[in-house]
């Protein structure tokens, strides 16, 4: 008998094995009840503070910011998950030495982690509907922007995870990086409150760019032509660029020493 015949026939593409690995990762995430609860509770706590301390006009910023930040933190969890299963469990070896495409390993992980964040995001969407109902166009723009943020932050997280050989060394960097991109710039508050000369920088950071773009399409804080182009253009280039880099990195890092 020819043992090669025993291998299941798999059509090889960058997406080989994606549904299977997405199923694996989402099951892993959903078994982690404390993480699910904490992802939900953190948002609620934050919103309670905004509700109590900020003027009512800031509520829409806070809710949109919380949705953007939730999706953005998927990247931090992807980073920790990828590093953990590589350094502690060595499961990357199990999967990389299999028909699963390295790109599918990365995207499946990012999609599986996203599943964990969907309940808090849905809760926030309901709150947003109460605070400032969305019409079709803003809803579509929001959905597309969130997809971009998810790909951007997951790619960033995955790439960073491969640069370390010690799990503990990653933690401070991940916290610093994701707060620097996701909290410091005007994600939860108006762009106008950010120092004027630094506003273009904020518009080049994907989370604050999405927040500003959303305020524009929702009619809350319209952007001038120049800043709008900067926000949309920057977002497109960064999300597409970093995602392509992430996919390429996933393939490259599937085999060490290259």
């Amino acid at each position, binding site marked *: 008998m020819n043992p090669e015949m025993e291998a299941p026939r798999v059509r090889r593409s960058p997406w080989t094995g994606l549904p*299977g690995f997405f199923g*694996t990762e989402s099951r*892993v995430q959903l078994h982690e009840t404390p993480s699910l609860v904490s992802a939900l509770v953190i948002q609620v706590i934050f919103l309670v503070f905004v509700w109590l301390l900020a003027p009512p006009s800031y509520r829409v910023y806070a809710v949109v910011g919380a949705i953007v930040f939730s999706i953005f933190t998927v990247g931090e969890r992807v980073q920790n998950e990828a590093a953990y299963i590589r350094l502690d*469990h*060595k499961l990357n070896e199990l999967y990389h030495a299999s*028909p*699963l*495409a390295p790109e599918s390993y990365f995207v499946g992980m990012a999609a599986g982690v996203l599943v964990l964040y969907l309940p808090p995001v849905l809760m926030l969407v309901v709150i947003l509907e109460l605070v400032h109902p969305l019409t079709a166009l803003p809803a579509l723009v929001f959905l597309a922007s969130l997809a971009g943020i998810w790909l951007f932050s997951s790619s960033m997280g995955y790439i960073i995870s491969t640069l370390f050989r010690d799990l503990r060394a990653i933690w401070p960097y991940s916290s610093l990086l994701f707060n620097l991109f996701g909290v410091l710039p005007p994600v939860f508050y108006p762009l106008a409150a950010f120092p004027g000369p630094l506003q273009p920088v904020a518009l080049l950071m994907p989370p604050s760019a999405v927040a500003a773009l959303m305020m524009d399409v929702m009619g809350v804080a319209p952007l001038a032509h120049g800043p709008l182009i900067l926000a949309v253009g920057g977002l497109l280039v960064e999300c597409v660029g970093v995602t392509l880099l992430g996919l390429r990195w996933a393939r490259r890092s599937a085999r*060490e020493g290259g």
Partner: protein
Amino acid sequence: MTTPALSAREVKKVYRPRNRPEVPALKGVSLEVGRGERVGLLGRNGAGKTTFLKIASTLLRPTSGEITIFGHDVMAHPEEVRPLIAVVPQEGKPFFHLTPREQVYTYLRTRGFSRESARTRTEEAIEQMGLGEVADRLNVTLSGGQMQRAMVATIIATEAPLLFLDEPTIGMDPFARRGVWDSLRRLTRKGSTILLTTHYLDEAEVLSDHIYIVDRGKVLAAGTAEELKRKTGGTLRVSIRGANHMREGFRSFGDLIVEDDTFHIITEPPRVPEIMQTALDQKLSVTVGPVTLEEAFLRLVGRSINDES
């Protein structure tokens, strides 16, 4: 002529860590694994076994050399090789937040097995590994040995044409180890090929059709367990206790190994009656047994260390 399952030619690997001297891990390893064979790779810690396995399983780039798996070049076409292999990584652990049943099933689905086939194979592997009672408990609640069994179950369920197992039975009790041995034998009967590393030499002996002993990045010796034992100078070990001061009188019968207050003579069966007679004449107690693979390993690797120093 049939292509071998694995063929390696002069594989070298030099690790170049930043700000530290180069580490030559493999210095030109050549070996061949025939289809349907179970081959053991033995060596001390740091001998290069895991590095070789990682290169062969497409996880690490070699510095030079060539490896083919069923005729496919591992370096040039890893995507052709990956569907044909499955790996139990050294010190690998299953997902803590999956059950053994989910671990095996989802892995099979990821590899492209249909739902039906994945379900059947999962149940078979769970049963073979004796994980039935814990199959629906999260892996994080299992003992180290049970987790290792879950890892092996994940791989054997694939029945991949070539399986790499890096210390697959580490941490397992003797019953579980035998369960793994049976499963591996069953797999090779079905046509799979197995390359394993282990520090349990009894395991290597009972499982391996062929053994390669690797030391300091080179193949030191190769052959069946019996052939390797013969390389030590004999197939029998005559042990004489409490008479180390008289050992010189026995040197002509074979190689001597001294261990505490006992010395062992490694010899061939025709010489045993003569040794027995000499020992009885001097009122010494003698035991006779076969040379073990562990003794052969210690002799061969020890000799290599002495040669180098």
